[in-house]
Each structure stands twice: as structure tokens, then as C-alpha cells.
């Protein structure tokens, strides 16, 4: 990758340690992805905010970096470990809270916009078509490329952080226009959001950078988010296009059999001790939709709903938050299902959810069994 003279100076440390670190990251990423140069980006969304995922080494790294690094562009951040309003209900230890607060402080010092959300695309107005951004959260990167008409690599926590500090990113992969070389034919009838989650997980495994999907028309928000999140979990694919006439060289089917295989990999229980909705966090549309589905009904088990702070406030002023709470839901903001420290083996053995991404991390990181169901079935089975 070619650097300008100024970029070269930064890489050599002439503009301080934090810029040098950032350019070292961008250079490695540029080499790995065959980028020829860096391009300006206009919005960074960084991951690596939850103490549960980045640990002590991450917390110390950020504390050190924030001594002199400043974000150069709008920088939104992923969820952290808990919602301050309800943290005392979950029995987290002092050390966790202290380290989490240190991480928050470091990002504040560098100039973050305190979104604590994995769905920045539902909180902020999207810039005009084809704007270059750097989104680390995988569901948000795939959403930006596939639905938001923006351009981003499927960034890592560090590459997006380096973009936030420099305002630049390697011009590689998905920043250019290229057509997918793999096409998946969706054959499953009457799909719901869980079906699209299973399809996304399958697609992430078989596709490389981008994928075409045929046989699908007009997805609603819930299905779109489910597809983006699961695709980001299982692979490195960062974009999908709905296209019945793709000229991709490789074509595969996604039928009942393929769907069942993915389902059997992730579903390990017939029921859950607790219900979680989110990963990605719920947007306003999903909250109002759920409030309508729950009219006159109430959950028989604990049900945690993860949503951004800004969305919870809107839902509260419109009356939907109250309706959800009356139906037995607990609303949690600034955090999400994915690698949550709030749901552990100490309290439950299994979780019911409609999130494929949530299921993957509950299983692998929290060591819990998972019962997968679409939202409609969760409501019909778990409420009365």
C-alpha cells in the first residue's frame, strides 16, 4: 500500500505514539487486503467497549491510548457490559464495574458519541449514498453495505479505532464496487426472522466477501437485522445483495435441509429458563411491533429486551416502554445479548431467543444451552 509523505511520517512516529499505532494497524490491514492507498472516512463505529469482551489488556490499552489520542471523525461506540440504571439487579462484582467505567472514560476522553449501541444505523441519520465509513460491529457493517447504501470494510475493533483516530481507512474489499461471486438460492417457504438468521449464518460460512441472495423480496427490519447479524457471526462476508439474476459463478441452495443443519448446530434445548430479545438491539419499529403483539398478554418468565438508550427514551415518551414493562419485559440499554455478563450459568442453564448471533455467543462464551424460536412463537408459547 502506498502512503503519502505525511502518512509515512505518522507511521514512523513523527506525529506521536497514538498516530503511529493507528497507522501501523492501517498498514497491516492494507497489506492483508491488497489496498493501494488510504481513503478518508466520515464516520467510525468502534467495537471493543464491553469489559467482558476486551478484558484487562483491552482496558489498559484504551486507558493508555486515550492519554493523547483524539477521534478525528464522528465516532459512535458499541454496547458495553450493563445498563447503569439496573446494574445492581445483576450482581456484577465491583471490579467489573470499575473496569467498565474506565473503558467508558477512555472513549469519552477520545471524543466518542455515547451511543453504546450495535445498531447505529437506527439511531443516526445515514449520510448520503456511497459515503465511506468504518463500521466494526459486524451486523452494522453488513447493514451499512447492504441496506444503508454506505461503504465500509467489515472492520475489526482496531481497524475502526485506527480509522476514528486518523479519519482514514484502506481502500480495499467492500469499499469498491464489485459483484458477488457466490449466489444463494433461498428455497425455504414462509420464512420468518429466524429463517433469515439461519440463512445468514449459512451464507457467512459459504461466501467470501459478498453474496447474492435470490428468491427473497422486501425484507422487513427484523428479518434484515437477523440476516446481517448472523452473517457477520459465522464468516468474513460483509455484504449481501438481493438479486434473482446474479451472474455469480458459484451457486448453492438454501433449503429445508441446509436450514435444519444450522438449526441443529445452534439449538441445544427445547425450552429456556429466561428469554432475551436483542442482538442486534431492538429498534423503535420492533419495540412498537412487540408492544402490539403483547397486548393483553404477559410473560410467564423473565424476559430481557436490549435496546439503545435513545430508542428506550423514544419508546418511553410514546408509551410503548410502559406497555412492554406491563407485559413483564425488562428494558436494558447501553448493553446487549452478545457476550453479556448479565446472563450466566450461576442463574440459568438455558435461554430462549430468536437471535442466531445471540445463540452462538450464549453457547460458546456464556456456556449456556439455547432454545431458538421466532418471535411469534416466543409470544405464543411464553405469555398468557
Amino acid at each position, binding site marked *: 500500500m502506498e502512503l503519502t509523505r505525511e502518512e509515512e511520517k505518522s507511521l514512523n512516529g513523527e506525529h506521536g505514539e497514538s498516530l503511529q499505532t493507528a497507522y501501523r494497524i492501517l498498514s497491516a490491514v492494507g497489506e*492483508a487486503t491488497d489496498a493501494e492507498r488510504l481513503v478518508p472516512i466520515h464516520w467510525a463505529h468502534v467495537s471493543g467497549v464491553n469489559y467482558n469482551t476486551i478484558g484487562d489488556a483491552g482496558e489498559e490499552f484504551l486507558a493508555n491510548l486515550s492519554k493523547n489520542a483524539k477521534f478525528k471523525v464522528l465516532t459512535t461506540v458499541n454496547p458495553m457490559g450493563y445498563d447503569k440504571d439496573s446494574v445492581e439487579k445483576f450482581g456484577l462484582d465491583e471490579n467489573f464495574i470499575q473496569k467498565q467505567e474506565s473503558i467508558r472514560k477512555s472513549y469519552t476522553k477520545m471524543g466518542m458519541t455515547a451511543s453504546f449501541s450495535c445498531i447505529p444505523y437506527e439511531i443516526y441519520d445515514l449520510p448520503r449514498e456511497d459515503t465511506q465509513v468504518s463500521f*466494526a460491529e459486524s451486523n452494522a457493517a453488513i447493514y451499512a453495505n447492504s441496506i444503508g447504501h454506505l461503504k465500509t470494510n467489515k472492520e475489526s475493533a482496531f481497524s475502526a479505532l485506527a480509522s476514528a483516530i486518523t479519519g482514514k481507512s484502506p481502500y480495499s474489499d467492500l469499499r469498491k464496487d464489485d459483484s458477488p461471486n457466490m449466489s444463494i438460492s433461498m428455497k425455504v417457504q414462509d420464512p420468518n426472522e429466524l429463517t433469515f438468521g439461519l440463512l445468514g449464518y449459512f451464507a457467512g460460512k459459504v461466501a467470501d466477501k459478498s453474496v447474492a441472495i435470490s428468491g427473497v423480496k422486501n425484507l422487513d427490519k427484523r428479518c434484515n437485522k437477523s440476516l446481517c447479524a448472523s452473517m457477520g457471526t459465522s464468516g468474513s462476508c460483509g455484504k449481501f445483495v438481493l438479486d434473482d439474476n446474479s451472474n455469480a459463478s458459484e451457486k448453492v441452495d438454501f433449503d429445508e435441509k441446509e436450514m435444519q443443519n444450522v438449526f441443529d448446530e445452534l439449538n441445544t434445548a427445547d425450552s429456556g429458563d429466561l428469554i432475551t430479545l436483542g442482538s442486534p438491539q431492538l429498534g423503535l419499529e420492533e419495540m412498537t411491533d412487540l408492544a402490539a403483539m403483547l397486548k393483553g398478554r404477559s410473560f410467564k418468565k423473565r424476559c430481557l429486551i436490549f435496546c439503545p438508550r435513545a430508542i428506550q427514551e423514544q419508546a418511553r415518551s410514546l408509551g410503548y416502554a410502559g406497555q412492554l414493562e406491563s407485559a413483564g419485559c425488562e428494558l436494558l440499554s447501553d448493553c446487549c445479548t452478545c457476550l453479556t455478563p448479565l446472563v450466566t450459568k450461576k442463574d440459568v442453564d438455558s435461554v430462549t431467543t430468536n437471535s442466531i448471533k445471540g445463540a452462538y455467543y450464549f453457547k460458546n462464551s456464556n456456556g449456556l444451552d439455547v432454545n431458538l424460536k421466532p418471535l411469534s412463537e416466543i409470544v405464543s408459547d411464553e405469555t398468557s
Partner: protein
Amino acid sequence: MTQKIIVQGKVTGKVLKSNQPINFLGTIDKKTGEIIDKKHDLYGKTIKDSILIFPNGIGSSVGAYTIYSIKSNNVSPLAMACQKVDLTVASGCALANIPLFILEPDEYDKIKDGDEISLG
């Protein structure tokens, strides 16, 4: 034998080879360097002081912090080598200063688990 150097370094060591991609978040214990995903072909093994060879990284963007953490916790591999390098592995190794290589396809296929090799 290397097609491309992503993060520089010279190493000699024993190969730990996986046929499956790795999602560093959720697959590796950042304190011990052990593979904790029961469905992974390296389940139960530790990546510490190995030359870790795997097709490519997948999944979470936060896996880059896991790579940085295993280095800080002294349980990192001596180097990593892949068929293709995704942004998570590239940026994690760059920050942690773990040598990282893309191998020629023939070489990648030839190297076996347990081989003693030198890279860089």
C-alpha cells in the same frame, strides 16, 4: 514459502494446524490460550508458543482484542500463518506484534500439524 508478510518477524517452532477458520472471540480463552469451542478441531489444545496455521479468521470484530490479550497474557502463538488474512487477524497481530504471514497455497497444503518450521 510465504506469499506475503503482513506483520514482520522471524520464528522457528512447531506447527499447530487447523482446518477450520477461527473466530477469536468465543473460540480462544484469552487468559490461557486454550481453544474452548467444543465444535472446533483444535478443541482442548493451547495455541501458546505454536506457529498457528489456519485458513482465515471469521466472525467478531472484537476478536482483535482477544489477539492483543493473548499476547499481553503471554499465551500467544509465536506467529500465525493463513490462506487469507481478514481485518481482525491483521489488526490484532499488528497491534500485538505477532508475526503474520499469508502462505503460498501449495506450501499451506504441505505443512502438517506438528511440523517444525521457520518463517520470516
